[in-house]
């Protein structure tokens, strides 16, 4: 566990209302080492996205412990969670989650805005991040003027502009055609090779097999399989 960057111990997440209690994540115990590419797979409703949201600090556990970069997220206050989302992790989503009224550059800048980075530096860093995604000529375009693959690359640039240790990807290829999806997977694999820890949620375990080094399979919120490529 020396290299563990994410540690979950008896992690639970329940959703309750007046009539029912739904268990999204049940007694999860696992850890992720730095530099790993982990695919979290499972059927729809198995708790994959909930797990990603918990690691990303968008959601809080009902019980158990979740430590990211050595810090217990369950005990963090909202301000600390925001700092965690800003610096420790970067997130990308199936639907890209870009602000339609803002340009690619402004969307990437948004992540730096909350960090209090001065405008000039913000612009420089955002442009550099987009450039590294091969979007130098698309900076002034709004999401609606970009293809799905380009939009996801803008989202990746935004997720990485604050240089996080972990990239959390929630079905990043779900809205893309197979060719573009493969390109995005290659891009994520390349980032992983550079040392970035990647946790990718997908319902399509086969598509991610060639890039991920480890697979966590969830079923009804429980971890039912934890396999590494060397073991597979």
């Amino acid at each position: 566990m020396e290299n563990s960057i994410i540690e979950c111990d008896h992690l639970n997440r329940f959703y309750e209302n007046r009539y029912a209690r739904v268990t999204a994540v049940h007694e999860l115990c696992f850890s992720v080492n730095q530099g790993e590419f982990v695919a979290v797979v499972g059927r729809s409703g198995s708790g994959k996205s909930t797990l990603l949201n918990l690691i990303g600090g968008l959601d809080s556990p009902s019980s158990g412990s979740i430590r990211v970069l050595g810090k217990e997220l369950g005990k963090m206050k909202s301000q600390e969670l925001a700092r965690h989302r800003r610096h420790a992790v970067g997130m990308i989503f199936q639907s890209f989650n870009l602000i339609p009224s803002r340009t690619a550059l402004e969307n990437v800048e948004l992540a730096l805005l909350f960090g209090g980075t001065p405008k000039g530096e913000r612009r420089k860093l955002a442009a550099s991040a987009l450039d590294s995604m091969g979007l130098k000529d698309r900076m002034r375009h709004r999401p609606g003027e970009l293809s799905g693959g380009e939009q996801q690359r803008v989202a990746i640039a935004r997720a990485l502009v604050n240089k996080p240790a972990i990239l959390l990807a929630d079905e990043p290829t779900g809205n893309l055609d197979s060719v573009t999806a493969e390109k995005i997977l290659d891009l994520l694999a390349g980032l992983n090779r550079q040392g970035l820890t990647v946790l990718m949620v997908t319902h399509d375990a086969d598509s991610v097999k060639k890039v991920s080094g480890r697979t966590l399979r969830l079923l009804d919120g429980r971890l039912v399989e934890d396999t590494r490529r060397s073991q597979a």
Partner: protein
Amino acid sequence: MRAFDAVALGLDNLRRTRLRTFLTTLGVVIGIGALVSMVSFGTGMQKNVSRVFYENDLFTSLIVTPRKIDPNAMMSGDLSALEQVVAPKEAALDDSALFQFRALPGVMMAYPQIQFPVKIRILGHETENQLGALPARMGEFPPYNELPHGSFFSGDGDSCLLIGQSVLKKMKWILRSGGFKAISLEDSLRGVRSIPPDSLIGQDAEIITSVMDVSSILKNPWQYMASPGRMPTAERSIRFRISGILQKTDDFHGRPFSSELIIPLGMVRHIPRFGFNNVWDLLGNKTSDESYGSIYVRVHGFEDVAPVKQAVESMGFGVFAISDQLQEIRKGFLILDTALGAVGAIALIVAALGIINTMIMSILERTREIGIMKSVGGSEAEIRLIFLTEAGVIGLLGGVFGILLGWIVTRIANAVANFYFAKEGIEHVEMFYMPLWLICGAVAFAIAVSVLAGLYPAARAAAVNPVEALRHE
């Protein structure tokens, strides 16, 4: 997040919904416009009253009466106050008292207030008016130091007369100064004619008074026996030369404690008349011809008012300081301003509801955006700040343009009011006054109200669950 970035982001968000922002801001503009015009009316009125006080140097004026009279108690029907007035008085308000007043530190001058009814005849025109008397030294002070025509008398023994324009109007004259003077149809039908002021200056004026004439009873006793109500009076006449014409007075440009017909103080004793001069004489239970009904005391500065008042009161006299009344008037204006402000504030409350509505709509529309901002590291405080900034910007724009609207409204209202005033012969009056504190205060108030209105929507935005928000379509 830096404050500058929050403002820039807020402005950018508002720019994205121009029409909605315009309509919401318009609500604040109307609210502030109403508030500013209402309050500026109150402050304008207050300024006009204060100006009358200053123009007439009333802050340095004291009226000494034979005994302390509380006008408020008198008005409220307090019998003890009335008893105090009619009770016999030991200290007489006579020349001896006058000299004592003049010797008090801080006193510039003191003179008896004398006013009595007379008939005046100039070039065959005749009317009745109160005649007042002033010492020649009053010509140094406003409003007598700058007469529109002619000059103040130079000596207390001069046979000079100052005449007011309202008296001239009663004599069916309107001054023609600097060319054509418009006479209203109503005045024209009354036979009012214009007259050049130069033709009046230096002109003789006959002051006619009534006196008791006991000899007429002896001459014709049957006449008085036949009608017992008839008074044995006779008219006496004395000639004065018109040396100056007084400034025009109206509701906003008054001349308290004075008359529209003024002669030098030293000339009063040459005018035969009845034994009492004015209402103070009657109220003051004037005991002899040597005592006065009231004495006007002028002090050097406002700071001398209180000590002189105290000294005079300790002598057993009553003192009426107009500056005391100003405090009461100011209190009244504060109430008026508050009432007017409250009317304007209602419009602003409606505008605030508009802001709340707009911002809640905006949050609903931007739920996903809020989720995105949170997912990239936006804290609750920062999200709150963004929305509060947007509300503040609406307030700032509404405040600035509201003042502009208020200014335009007050200019139009002032022009309309003065158009009617001019018809009534009232001089131009600035009814509205927009001091700097009102301008700054209105903008600050607009921002404060808008931010206050934005508190709930901002809190709601900050509390948005990012997971749910990211799923929001």
